[in-house]
């Protein structure tokens, strides 16, 4: 190829890519993004804990003896923490899921309403989680 037709060296273009996982810590997420990623985290958490949930259901309904066993498990502090994590997962997934269903009908898609509805999701979830935590650890 002759000198004349050789292309001039291209300018280095800036590349735009999705942020890397390691950059997440110093990237301030909008509330809707937090609700969205927590929707995934809570869903996957419940998926992994399905056998534990089914086990608790089994012990709670099979017989009076197994019900006493269920109460024994549920009174263990570690089990209480797992149950609390599941309550968080359920509440978050439930509220964020309803938000998604509403948004699927093209309601509340603009930036401000999306932010407001994510605040609502987080507030309802955490109020319920705190009330359940107080109940589980015997405050009332």
């Amino acid at each position: 190829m002759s000198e004349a037709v050789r292309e001039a060296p291209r300018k280095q273009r800036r590349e735009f890519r999705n942020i890397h996982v390691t950059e997440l810590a110093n990237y301030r997420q909008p509330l809707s993004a937090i609700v969205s990623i927590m929707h995934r985290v809570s869903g996957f958490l419940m998926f992994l804990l399905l056998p534990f949930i089914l086990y608790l259901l089994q012990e709670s309904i099979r017989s009076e003896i197994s019900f006493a066993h269920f109460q024994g498990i549920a009174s263990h502090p570690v089990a209480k923490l797992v149950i609390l994590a599941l309550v968080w997962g359920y509440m978050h997934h439930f509220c964020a899921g309803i938000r998604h269903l509403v948004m699927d009908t093209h309601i509340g898609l603009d930036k401000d309403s999306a932010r407001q509805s994510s605040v609502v999701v987080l507030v309802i979830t955490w109020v319920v989680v705190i009330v359940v935590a107080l109940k589980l650890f015997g405050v009332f």
Partner: protein
Amino acid sequence: MKNNIGSKRLVVGAGYGLGEFLAQRATAVVMVVYTVVLLVSFLTGNNFSYEGWAGLFAQTWFKLFTLATLIGLFYHAWVGVVSIYQDYVKNIAVRFILHTASAMWLVACAVWSVQILWSV
């Protein structure tokens, strides 16, 4: 040229994911309804002991409603975990193993739920 862009796009034929998308929403609505029914049935009763709780699950209609909801839940979870793997797991072999393991996980849970529900 045929106009099949945007809302006129042909969405039948080989998997465009619309079926999964809709099934995930439909099962979500079923689970919301189930949650309300479960809470109302239990909390409006005046028996919060074993009898009240197990008595609820002793009725055939409630067993069937629970099982149908759970099967919906497992399908909902399947669609959900597959989306997660598609987004974060780029290695096809690893993804295939995760798909297989998740499917077995959910099928096992489904069979176990039948056993649990019909043990009371």
